[in-house]
């Protein structure tokens, strides 16, 4: 049995309990630290990076697709949504969907032209594509306000909930709902036939194609889905943060490296590892704010250590803890 790999574990009772405990903690968190707004902002960052990490993991860990232009898809979602709200007076809730579609379409088109290339070339092509997008935004200040910064409207109130940015809780719970939905879709996807195809293609593309599966089709499904949800969270980010500038720390290589670190440290091919790593890395970053640049030195060291000594990242410690 071990040679063939164990059959997919079903959702047995203990798994339900674990998932329920995690969810209960995430729902209760803002109330546990009720007097401390700061904790809620950290939870929002951690969830955002966590779910971006999950999308990165879907691409690299399941599809074997190197997306080194990840920040470009966040950018497409964020600017797609913000510009729609800014220029065309569209309801920001609908704009978030527009942002997600913009990123998804960009992902689809990128996939169509690059996914037949060998792995590292996909990485390089997406990297330059993201840079082209970022530089185009910064070169067209008349439409995007470029480096001056584009102010983004907050989400309008809905169901009596106040989404002015003075209130963090609605933004936190909105994000939590989005994260749960996206994670559930990703988890269903990787455990379905589609997910099995991803794995087969990643392990041996040629053999899989001789079985009649179109590798490009499945890679395209993977890439487009990941980009769509990356863009959705990017759009959320735009309305949550309130101002966008196309600089490198925001939408360039450093942002991609952050998300990549979350996915690698969490453990490729696990999905949940990225959420855990999001909390640990962002929490670590905020807790050790006074360490300044040493923080990033530790990040780099951690990434290298994971590459050399623990390719499965934090997920390899699961059996000891939980």
């Amino acid at each position: 049995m071990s040679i063939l790999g164990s059959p997919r574990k079903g959702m047995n009772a203990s798994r339900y309990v674990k998932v329920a405990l995690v969810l209960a903690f995430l729902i209760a968190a803002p109330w546990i630290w009720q007097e401390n707004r700061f904790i809620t902002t950290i939870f929002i960052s951690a969830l955002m990076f966590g779910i971006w990490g999950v999308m990165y993991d879907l691409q690299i860990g399941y599809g074997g697709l190197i997306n080194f232009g990840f920040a470009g898809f966040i950018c497409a979602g964020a600017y797609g949504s913000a510009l729609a709200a800014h220029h065309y007076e569209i309801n920001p809730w609908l704009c978030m969907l527009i942002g997600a579609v913009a990123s998804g379409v960009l992902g689809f088109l990128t996939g169509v032209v690059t996914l037949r290339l060998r792995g590292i070339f996909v990485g390089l092509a997406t990297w330059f594509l993201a840079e082209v997008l970022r530089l185009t935004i910064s070169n067209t200040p008349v439409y995007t306000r470029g480096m001056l910064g584009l102010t983004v409207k907050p989400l309008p109130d809905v169901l009596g909930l106040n989404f002015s940015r003075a209130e963090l809780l609605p933004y936190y719970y909105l994000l939590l709902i989005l994260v749960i939905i996206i994670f559930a879709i990703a988890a269903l996807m990787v455990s379905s036939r589609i997910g099995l195809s991803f794995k087969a293609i990643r392990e041996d593309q040629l053999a899989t194609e001789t079985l009649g599966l179109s590798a490009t089709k499945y890679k395209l499904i993977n890439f487009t889905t990941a980009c769509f949800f990356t863009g959705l969270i990017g759009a959320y980010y735009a309305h949550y943060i309130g101002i966008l500038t196309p600089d490198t720390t925001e939408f360039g290589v450093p942002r991609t490296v952050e998300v990549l670190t979350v996915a690698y440290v969490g453990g490729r091919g696990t999905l949940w590892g990225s959420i855990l790593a999001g909390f640990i890395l962002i929490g670590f970053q905020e807790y050790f704010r006074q360490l300044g640049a040493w923080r990033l030195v530790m990040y780099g060291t951690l990434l290298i250590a994971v590459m050399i000594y623990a390719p499965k990242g934090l997920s390899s410690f699961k059996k000891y803890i939980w």
Partner: protein
Amino acid sequence: MELSIFIQLIVLGLVRGSMYALMGVGLSLIFGIMAIVNFAHGELFMIGCYIMYFVASMLGLPFPLGILAAGIGLLIVGIILEKGLISTLRKKAGREWLMDSFVLTIGLMVIFQNLALIIFGSIQRGIPNLVAGQYVIGDVVFIYDHLVILGLALLTVGVLWYFIKNTSLGKAIRATSQHAEAAQTLGIDVSWMYAVAFGIGAALAGISGALLITLFPANPNAGMAPVLKSFVVVILGGLGNIKGAIAAGILVGLLEAYAVFFLAGGWQNVIVFSIVIAVLVFKPSGLFAPAGERP
């Protein structure tokens, strides 16, 4: 366009191009021999800038010593990195080597950038010029610094070329890149060859950094712009194709010199990057690869 401007732009283009070629050759060499996409190449460049600054400005020694120190220093750094980290990863990595080694160098990039920030702060440490003055023929200005950069870059590439083609160590490195196992059976110390190759690639980045200190003052982020350019050059020339990197370096240098003159600032990178994407999609083996060759 006036002839003098035309010639002036050719000179500027060649100077830029020779530097891009030097950076690109290092990156391409590392890829060609070890199959590593070295994202920390810009940080090796940055270390070269700092070495140059300390030798030429703080110690006040003549600048050729600074360039030499940067070359030797980075050769050692490169060998240590290869022996200490990369070779450890090579023993464990299998099919995922390309991506895994790439991510490893991303980690190195983050570490080097931030260590430089911690040690040196974010101050820019430049040198105004290597050789002061300029030479004027008609309306064309030859800045001595530019001539020094051009000359030394060409010299370095020439020496490297001779080394790779004609020395026994160079031949051993090429043999390793062509077929590591066969090379090993012939008695070549393959793991040492990898270390030397990475060291040489690093040394080329360091020499570029030292030479360009007048244009890119030493600071923790000094490597960011050059690394992007090196990747442009290496992709256009074909990953691993050293001749291609030299040709593409000079091509990009010339293109940029004219683009700066004719295009509004900011758009030239968009155009260059779009060309890069087109090359990746339509001819991933590079512009100068023989027809039909797949990377």
